[in-house]
C-alpha cells in the first residue's frame, strides 16, 4: 500500500477575516470548499466553520473557526519569520514550487503585499523561504534541489538507529542525550561494522 499525497492539513484560527484575506487575497489561493455546521460529537464541540484553500495538485490547506470559542492568550503574528519558537514552529506546512524563479517570484509577491519573508535558505535537498500567516503559523515555500535516492534512505535509517539506541540506553539511566555528537559517534560505529 502507498499513500498518494496530501489531501489537506488543518489548524484552528481565531482570525476569520484576516485568515481568508491572507490565503485568498495575498497568497491568491482559491477558496474551494467550506463546511458550516452545528457542533456535533462531543457535547462541548462548538458550532464551526471549516474552510479549504487550494494548494495545488488536489491538496488544500484548511482552517477551523470555532464560533464563540475562547481566544488563546499568546499572540504570535508579530514574530519574525524565523524558528525562534522551535517547538511551535516545528509544526508547519511547506508548499512545493518547481523552480528557483518561482520561489523568488513568491518572495517578491509576498513582500509587495507587506508580508515579511525570510531569506532563501538552502538545506540539503531543498531551498526554502519562510513567512507567517495572521495566526502566526509558520509557512514554507520550497523547491527540490534533487530527488531523494537510496543513499538518503540508507543514511536516514542509520541515523535514526543510532539515535534510538542512544536514547534507549540513556532512558534506562533516567537521562536523555543532549548532543548530536553522540549520535554521530554511534552512527560511525554502526557503519564501521559494515566495513
Amino acid at each position, binding site marked *: 500500500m502507498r499513500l498518494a499525497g496530501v489531501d489537506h492539513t488543518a489548524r484552528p484560527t481565531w482570525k476569520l477575516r484576516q485568515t481568508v484575506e491572507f490565503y485568498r487575497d495575498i497568497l491568491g489561493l482559491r477558496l474551494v470548499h467550506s463546511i458550516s455546521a452545528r457542533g456535533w460529537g462531543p457535547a462541548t464541540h462548538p458550532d464551526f466553520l471549516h474552510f479549504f484553500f487550494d494548494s495545488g495538485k488536489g491538496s488544500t490547506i484548511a482552517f477551523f473557526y470555532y464560533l464563540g470559542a475562547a481566544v488563546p492568550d499568546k499572540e504570535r503574528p508579530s514574530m519574525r519569520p524565523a524558528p525562534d519558537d522551535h517547538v511551535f514552529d516545528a509544526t508547519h506546512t511547506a508548499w512545493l514550487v518547481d523552480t528557483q524563479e518561482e520561489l523568488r517570484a513568491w518572495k517578491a509577491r509576498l513582500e509587495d503585499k507587506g508580508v515579511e519573508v525570510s531569506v532563501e535558505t538552502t538545506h*540539503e535537498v531543498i531551498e526554502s523561504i519562510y513567512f507567517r500567516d495572521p495566526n502566526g503559523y509558520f509557512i514554507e515555500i520550497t523547491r527540490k534541489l534533487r530527488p531523494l535516492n*537510496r*543513499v538518503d534512505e540508507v*543514511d536516514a535509517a542509520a541515523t535514526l538507529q543510532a539515535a534510538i539506541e542512544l536514547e534507549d540506553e540513556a532512558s534506562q539511566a533516567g537521562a536523555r542525550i543532549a548532543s548530536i*555528537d553522540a549520535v*554521530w559517534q554511534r*552512527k*560511525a*560505529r554502526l*557503519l564501521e561494522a559494515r566495513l
Partner: protein
Amino acid sequence: MRIRVFVPAVPEFAALAEAAKRRPACRVSAPLPEYQLIESSEPLEFARKELGLKPAVWYGLFTGGVRGRIEVFDRERVRILPAD
C-alpha cells in the same frame, strides 16, 4: 585511534570528501556504496568557505557519522581530534 568521517555519497556533502583529498594526512576511500570514508591520524580542520556550504548544511556536516572528538564547531570552522 584514527579519525573517521563517513560522508554520505550525495552532492551536498561532496565538497567535504574533495577537501579531505587535498589534505596529505587524509585517506579517502569508498568502502560502502552509500558513503565515502575520510580517515586521518592527525587533527582535521575544515573551513565553511573552503567547502562552499550554507549554514543549514554546514551544521550537519558530520551527519554521516564521525569517530573522533569535535574540538571546534562554529559557524566558520570545524576541528576534529583523534578519539582518546
